[in-house]
């Protein structure tokens, strides 16, 4: 079947679109925090936790878990800090790509 290097190339090709979609998530998270919409924060956090490391970005998964936990505790301050951390992680990922 496909060699490891081919598979890596395949996944690398998907990364720009993945990071762009996470930028959209930042916008949605900002709105959700402003609206105190804990359900949306939790859903987005859950998705980030599942997808980040799968794409090779464990830091995104870690932020996702923090967002999920903050939403469960209805802790908007923690959610805001996690959002800022996500923006930083995305900047680094985009500049290294």
């Amino acid at each position, binding site marked *: 079947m496909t060699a490891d290097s081919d598979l890596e190339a395949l996944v690398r090709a998907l990364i720009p679109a993945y990071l762009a979609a996470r930028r959209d998530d930042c916008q949605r998270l900002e709105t959700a925090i402003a609206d105190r919409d804990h359900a949306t924060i939790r859903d987005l956090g*859950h998705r980030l936790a599942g997808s980040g490391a799968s794409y090779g970005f464990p830091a995104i998964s870690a932020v996702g878990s923090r967002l999920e936990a903050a939403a469960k505790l209805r802790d908007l301050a923690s959610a805001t800090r996690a959002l800022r951390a996500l923006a930083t992680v995305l900047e680094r990922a985009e500049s290294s790509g």
Partner: protein
Amino acid sequence: MPAIDDRENGLVLVVDDDPSMVLLITAWLRAEGFGIDTAGDGAGCIDALARSLPDCVLLDIRLPDQSGVEVLTQIRQRHPRLPVIMLTAEKSVDTVVAAMQAGAWDYLPKPLEAPKLQATVRNAVRQHRLATRVSQLEREAGGYEGMIAQSATMRQLFRHMDRVAATDVTVLIHGESGTGKELVARAIHRASGRCDGPFVAINCAAIAESLAASELFGHERGAFTGAEQRRIGRLEQADGGTLFLDEVAELDMTLQANLLRALQERRFHRLGGSQDVSSDFRLVAATHRRLEEQVRAGRFREDLFFRVAVFELEVPALRERDDDILLLARHFLPAQLSLAAATGRLLRAYPWPGNVRELANAFEHASVVATDGLVRPGDLPRRIRDHPSAMHATVEAPAHEPSPAGTRIGSRSGASPVRRLADVERDAIEDAMERTGGNVSEACRQLGIGRTTLYRKLERYGIARPGGENR
């Protein structure tokens, strides 16, 4: 996303509401040569399964419309053998335990790793294909779900039945009267994921027009004079199973409209009722008429035709199943009786307008009339033994047949068609067995062949030995 079908390596249905995960999993699995179908929620997953049955499902445990475990339970009911791998980012052990108890084949924690995912899917697909092949071979060995046949046309029908049984699509069965359309419908039900549910059959030609609506949809108490209590209709009885509408072309136009609505909305009212009743059934319909012609003649609604004729099956007439006639004859023949060679020739020559049903009835008649353990042409019903085909079949002897090459050996009629060599050989063996009373040694001597050859040919042509003893 439509399925990228690559049946050679296996089709995988990926169910996840996160488009990024779907893209990544698709890339990983396509790199392994798998075909991919996708769905974003539980309802989409069930729709996809009805469209085309995959070899494996990757199912996220958290979906927007229902939980993955609920979807898994529905899949298990319809497709008990289909391996489902749960994907979960949940940390809770309880969720994983619930999924495994609901019948998950395996589970993979998120974040996912390509090698682990690919290996797990490979194993699941391999196991599913193996299980499917085993059950297919089991079926082929004994006909199909109790249906007896070995002709090429029937084997082709069995293959199509097998494919459609694995889905939930509506089936329309065509075939002349007596070909066994209901047997086909029952076999599809038994081979489907709905096999534990009810099989409810109704013959639309056999119910009085005035009672048909109540029969199909049921009625509430007091709905009409004589409706003393609530009655559950056939559509409702078929909940969780299969509804078989035989002779669907005979439904009147009003009922066709009501049935169409019930099929579209999956809900209906009992007569005299105002409450919605829903029923989850798979529809299998049958007709001996050409339904397209009924549509053109304005006797059948076109919209209902398209709703019913999603997957069409044609059950061949018995005269098109030459290889099956003697096989079926022996099935209907009581154990203490054998067929005379001339009867075998007659059975193969007669056109069987009433198909398998007529053959079964003929042997019921013959088993009463036959007196010495052998069914002769004269023991069959008059319409069969007096049929023009009977004269030719019972008088002709193999030695007088034209040879396959067209050179005639003692031919009485130069106009006779050339017979297949295999037919001539089969007749000669049948004659020898009959003349020698089943004495294998004597039959071998007369035919000029060895015992092993004779046994092989008896087996090939399905010829029974009178008395069944080796002598």
